[in-house]
């Protein structure tokens, strides 16, 4: 059984987000790039399954759509334990384009399980995983919080309102994973880092895909409004502020 984990290259979660070119482009100056946290959990679970011989998982590949600037992030995935990587060499523009390229990766290499994080922590589209499944005509399971392989059969747990749903799905399939699928991301060991030197990052040329969306502008969040303190013996002031300033009563 072969697993493909699709990874996004995203700014570190502590990055201060800024835009350039009249708020149409993300300013990547000085940004530290990391594996999208949800994708990292997917990778961790894939590696756990591979570590367990009874699952029959033989290899874990990471797939990425992006330019060579993402290679350090891909190399980290290899250091964490992925066996190899495939990068489709194109600047990602939107979820449709990324999903189309990832589908080509699957067609070329044939995987049994395709794992995607539920969203990326930069643009939060939450659509790549299900689009990949659609391109491939594979079943897709969303909001996956548990993934096991029992007697050769994938067993998936989904979080639903008030409980859990257990699903069987035949391979090949796409699972869109969320928190819970693995506890903590793995830390790259020294041995893993050394081994990552020799692991292959295969570069695939992209296929032509229509651009369906275009960013008009980014709007940074408004700064938090000032907090106003009202003395406890002055309820009239509070009422006045709520009526005239906040306009909520």
């Amino acid at each position: 059984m072969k697993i493909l984990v699709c990874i996004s290259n995203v700014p570190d979660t502590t990055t201060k987000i800024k835009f350039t070119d009249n708020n149409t482009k993300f300013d990547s100056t000085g940004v530290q790039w990391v594996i999208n946290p949800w994708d990292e959990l997917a990778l961790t679970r894939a590696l756990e399954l591979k570590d367990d011989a009874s699952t029959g998982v033989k290899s874990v590949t990471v797939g990425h759509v992006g330019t060579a600037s993402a290679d350090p992030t891909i190399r980290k995935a290899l250091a964490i334990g992925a066996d190899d990587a495939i990068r489709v060499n194109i600047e990602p523009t939107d979820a449709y384009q990324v999903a189309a390229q990832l589908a080509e990766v699957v067609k070329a290499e044939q995987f049994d399980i395709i794992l995607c994080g539920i969203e990326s922590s930069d643009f939060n589209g939450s659509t790549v995983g299900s689009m990949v499944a659609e391109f491939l005509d594979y079943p897709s399971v969303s909001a996956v919080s548990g993934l096991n392989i029992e007697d050769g059969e994938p067993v998936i747990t989904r979080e639903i309102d008030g409980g859990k749903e257990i699903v069987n799905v035949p391979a090949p399939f796409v699972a869109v994973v969320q928190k819970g699928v693995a506890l903590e991301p793995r830390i790259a060991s020294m041995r893993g880092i050394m081994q990552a030197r020799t692991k292959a990052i295969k570069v695939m040329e992209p296929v032509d895909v229509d651009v369906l969306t275009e960013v008009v502008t980014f709007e940074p969040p408004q700064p938090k409004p000032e907090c106003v303190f009202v003395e406890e013996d002055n309820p009239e002031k509070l009422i006045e502020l709520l009526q005239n300033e906040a306009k909520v009563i």
Partner: protein
Amino acid sequence: MENVNLKSGEFLVKDVEAKNIFIPEEFNEEQKMIAQSCRDFMEAEVLPKLDEIDKGDRQLMKDILKKSGELGLLGITIPEEYNGFGQSFLTQMLVAEVIGAGYSFSVAFMCHCGIGTMPIMYYGSEEQRKKYVSKLATGELLGAYCLTEPGAGSDANSGKTNAKLSEDGKHYILNGQKMWITNGGFCDTQVVFAKVDNDRILSAFIVESDWDGIVIGPDEHKMGIKGSSTTQIYYNDVKVPVENMIGKRGEGFRIALNILHMGRMKLGANVVGAAKQTITDSVRYANERKQFGTLISTFGAIKQKLAKMVVKCYAHESAIFRVSQDVDILIDKYKSEGKDQGLAGIEGIAHYAVEDAILKVWGSEMLDFVVDEGVQIHGGMGYSAEMNVERGYRDSRINRIFEGTNEINRLLVVEAATKRAMKGDYDLFGPAEELYNNISSITNDEVPDESYFDKKRRYMKNFKKAIMLTVYSATQKFGRKFMREQEVVNNLSDMIMELYLAESAVLRVEKLEGIKGDNPINKDILDVFVNDTAYVIFKNAKDAIYSIAESEEAEKLMGAIKTLTDIEGVNVMNACRRIADKLIDDNEYKF
């Protein structure tokens, strides 16, 4: 690497081009990944447990060290044939920087990886390395280093612990007492220094903690690094197999001193990690704390503190990686000459005795400055044990004491530099005499339309001349015994240290500009630091000169010193504001 490095102390008389030094912005992808793994490990296993660690739970510290061993972090320094990962000295120093932000864990980790392991790696036999180093590299064994005794601190060779050869010649019988032993409470192996029979010089031994006759005392109650196990260890007729002597009989003192050179280098890197952490904690607090209806980070007085913390940390960071490359080049040279890899490793480090003493003294005092201002920025909260800055303040203080006190190391800076000059490594006294003989014609060598970096390089040349003149007058006055005038030696040491830091920062900013283009903030940092350097050199030269020369002679010398330390004025307020504004905007140390 091109072999263009300077000998230890040679920076006093020779300039180096920016392109030939290493700057931290040049770390490669793999080195950055190693540093990130250390950071990830600290965030997962150390930082959430700081309070528990500081309660002094020996088992907890042991468990965390073992976990770091599982990731291979304990083997970074060790060659691959002994289960390690054979990383360069530069990478080792990068790791030391990251781990330096780990409070007590940092001390336990550095002790194990450094003084607990490396004496065996550097000086041990092949059998000793296979038996012990290969297990210390993975964390299967945890190590400690036992040199200090109740009566033997800075004067390490005065220890009384004795090793007597048994009648059958198979064992040394060890008796004595060691104190301030880091990792003492849980170590499996100890590198113990003792005198064989009636020797005057120490020998070194590998001792296993569970051997009969070893008693490990309770943990000391300390001001800081409370989570680091520090104990006394008593040896009562402990039978140490003769094959556990490290190196030759009587070689222990040299081993002990050389290992301290390594420890000083690494301490120099540790303090950068701790300082960056404190600066980040401080700016985050300043960005949240409001007084008089406004964030305190908007006040000039706070910005000035933040900027000065950054400036000192940046300059020190420039120096630690500059010398690390010099060490790597020398180690490679020794290896290519056929020297054993262990000996090549330690002799490459120990050669840079001037620089390691500088890193130790300047770095530990830089961190003390940073944590002190960190507490001040936190105000009352900085005095509360709830805040990490309070822990950082207490933990920092030991750095000026261990690995050789700063008092000893200040003397060593000057002693090592002058000894090497006398030995012929470079000519310090010739140019110094020439300067003195032409003192009336000394100018500051200013030329019209100098570029920014030409000007900075000219300042460095002039500072070097100021140091040479002061060293020359001290040695002329006191002759070979000038080292006894410790107050004057301290002045010289402060001048030399400040020069090395300033020059390292100049070279770093210049090289960085060549790589990434103009960076006004880095130039602000440089301007503020070099401005201070001129004052430090002037002040210490003046103190030294008036302490050693008669008034007429002193005035003649001071005329030259004034010229040589005369630099263009800097708008320190605006430069500090710009530095602080970047820090405030980033909300973390990102320089």
